């Protein structure tokens, strides 16, 4: 017996929401309560869509925090791991999501506050080296610019993935999906055990990310020339 208003998979995928929701999920988007009718549709069609996506080698995950996402477990559907920048920014935003100070503004935070928080948590040097591991020498001005660029890029991708909403140039709205970043520390068990469990379920990978060159990614994603200020500096410096 199912609570779904859809009697069959055919009915579920005939719904007007299906194409949009399907494309969003396949592109890695987390569909949450803030997405309104798209979320309601997923709640309603879950019983039919779970086996449907399983045939593609994916799990349609529903979290108690109020969001859905697609987790590929095989090779049938493409998947990618988040970059170091996305991970650091995502975890820091998750921390801000838990902060009662964010509550006062209904889950809105300023980009500037995020940068301050990141820098405070990691220290500027660690932050710069983590976001740009291949560079050995850093000029302070260039390093700051690089961090800002990487964070802005990470925010853009996290927005596409439905972890946050970009309100304007200065403000971000945090979404419950950010709690995915807190999964390894969500329960009181040993952190290592929690990580292993998440690796087994296909939620995370351990170790350094196999990151493509940024310029390559930019070429792929938006066709821009991927030429950064940092590259200019490197070229100028020989």
């Amino acid at each position, binding site marked *: 017996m199912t609570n779904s208003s859809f009697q069959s998979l055919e009915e579920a995928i005939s719904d007007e929401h299906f194409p949009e929701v399907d494309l969003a*999920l*396949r*592109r*890695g988007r987390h569909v949450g*309560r803030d997405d309104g009718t798209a979320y309601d549709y997923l709640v309603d069609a879950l019983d039919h869509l779970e086996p449907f996506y399983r045939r593609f080698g*994916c799990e349609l995950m529903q979290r*108690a*925090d*109020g969001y859905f*996402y*697609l*987790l*590929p477990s095989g090779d049938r*559907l*493409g*998947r*990618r*791991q*988040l*970059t170091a920048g996305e*991970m*650091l920014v*995502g*975890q*820091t935003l*998750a*921390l801000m*999501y*838990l*902060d*009662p*100070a964010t*509550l*006062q*503004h*209904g*889950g809105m935070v300023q980009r500037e506050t995020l940068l301050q928080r990141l820098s405070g*948590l*990691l220290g500027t040097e*660690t932050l710069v*080296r*983590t976001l740009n591991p291949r560079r050995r020498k850093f000029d302070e001005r260039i390093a700051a610019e690089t961090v800002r660029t990487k964070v802005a890029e990470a925010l853009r991708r996290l927005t596409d*993935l439905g972890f946050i909403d970009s309100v304007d140039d200065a403000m971000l709205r945090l979404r*419950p999906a950010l*709690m*995915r970043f*807190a999964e390894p*520390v*969500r329960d*009181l068990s040993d*952190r290592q055990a929690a990580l292993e469990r*998440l690796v087994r379920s*296909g*939620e*995370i*990978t*351990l*170790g*350094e*990310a196999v990151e493509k060159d940024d310029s390559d990614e930019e070429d792929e994603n938006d066709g821009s020339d991927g030429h950064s200020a940092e590259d200019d500096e490197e070229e100028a410096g020989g």
Partner: protein
Amino acid sequence: MPSDPSRLIAALARDQINLDLKTLDLCFLAGLYLRADRASLASFEEDVLIDMFEQVCDVVDPGAERPRKRATHAIQRLRDQRMLARVDGAGIVRSGEYTLTRLAAAVVEYFLADEALTRESLTLLTGTLRAQLAEILAAARRAETEDAWREHVVAPLRITVGDLVGGIERRQRGLDSQQEEVQAEIAKLLQVDWFGAVDRCQSLLDTTTNTLRELNEVLLRDTHHFVALLQEIQALASEAEQAEPEEAVQRVIEHVDRIAAWGGARQRAWSEYYQYVHRYLRDVVRLDPDRALSQRLRDEVANWPSTPFHLLVAAAPSIRLLRPLESRVERPAVMRPRTDREGSPDLVDPEDAGLNIETLVEDALAAGARSLAEVTEWVLPQFPADLRYAVTGRVADVLARITRTRSAIERPWRTVAPRLEVEDWELPREGDRR
């Protein structure tokens, strides 16, 4: 006062309007306001002002020296800023009597008066407003002259109704700031007491939600009546062809619409905030009563560079849409048509009209011409009109070559043909020529 906002702002900028109130000044004003309120004073004698300043000084700045002198400066400063006004008009004859200005009262009221909108105050205000509008409608039905419209409709609309509507709006702003305080208080309560603050936060949320819902209900119900009454007055004014009352009613309708829109907008905004906080209390606070998650996550972020892990997300590429197949098109080379650029020259008649000019000049001289003008006049009629200008130059050239010419410093201009003049030369007599 100019009605155009740009002109009004320009006038304020030109007059360099500014306010500079220190905490002591504000406390002094507040002390005076409260004293006037309790003792029903309309004005203050100078000694009372100084006495009040000293009392305020004892609280705000206990160690201050020479408080009387400071009081004198403070009074002058407040007079300069139009916070205090001298009302006795006695000049230097005796010590002055002062009153708080409307500006000072407004500033103090903002800080002291608790003027947030409540169900009671709103019901009272809307009830009075409704009665007032009903009276104005009755007056509008009776009004026959322009004076009657002005006295019984326009004036009450602008003053009584305007004040009542303004009063509701002012209290709405009060409630806005109260809501901000509630939001800050919820954040502070959780910051301090985390799990222990859940019930208190819930209660604050519910209280504000109920207040807003009640106010919105009253506003929705009553503004509908206001607008109906106002439209009736406007129709009567329109029938009587009274432009001024019509315009006054329109302004009040716009004001009332604004008040009604406030209710809806605030309820929507609060509803979003309510849901967000509710979810937070349920998903974050209740599930983590010891607030350990934040600390663990903080440690996790700090240690991430040394033991990194990466979330996995689906990343199906976009469907590739291939372009329709097109057969290869041979593009012709860019070229231009060949033409024979070596054309045959045109045949024209030889120009020999000037060949005999020298002969003609000599003939003229032989005939007794004694100046360039005379020679030219003699030669020109031999040529067609379109050649005469050119021939004139050649005549001068020939003459200069075959004779010795003389000329005055100021050579006179002589007409030699219609629309043709030359600067004349004199010629030597026959025996003097070359």
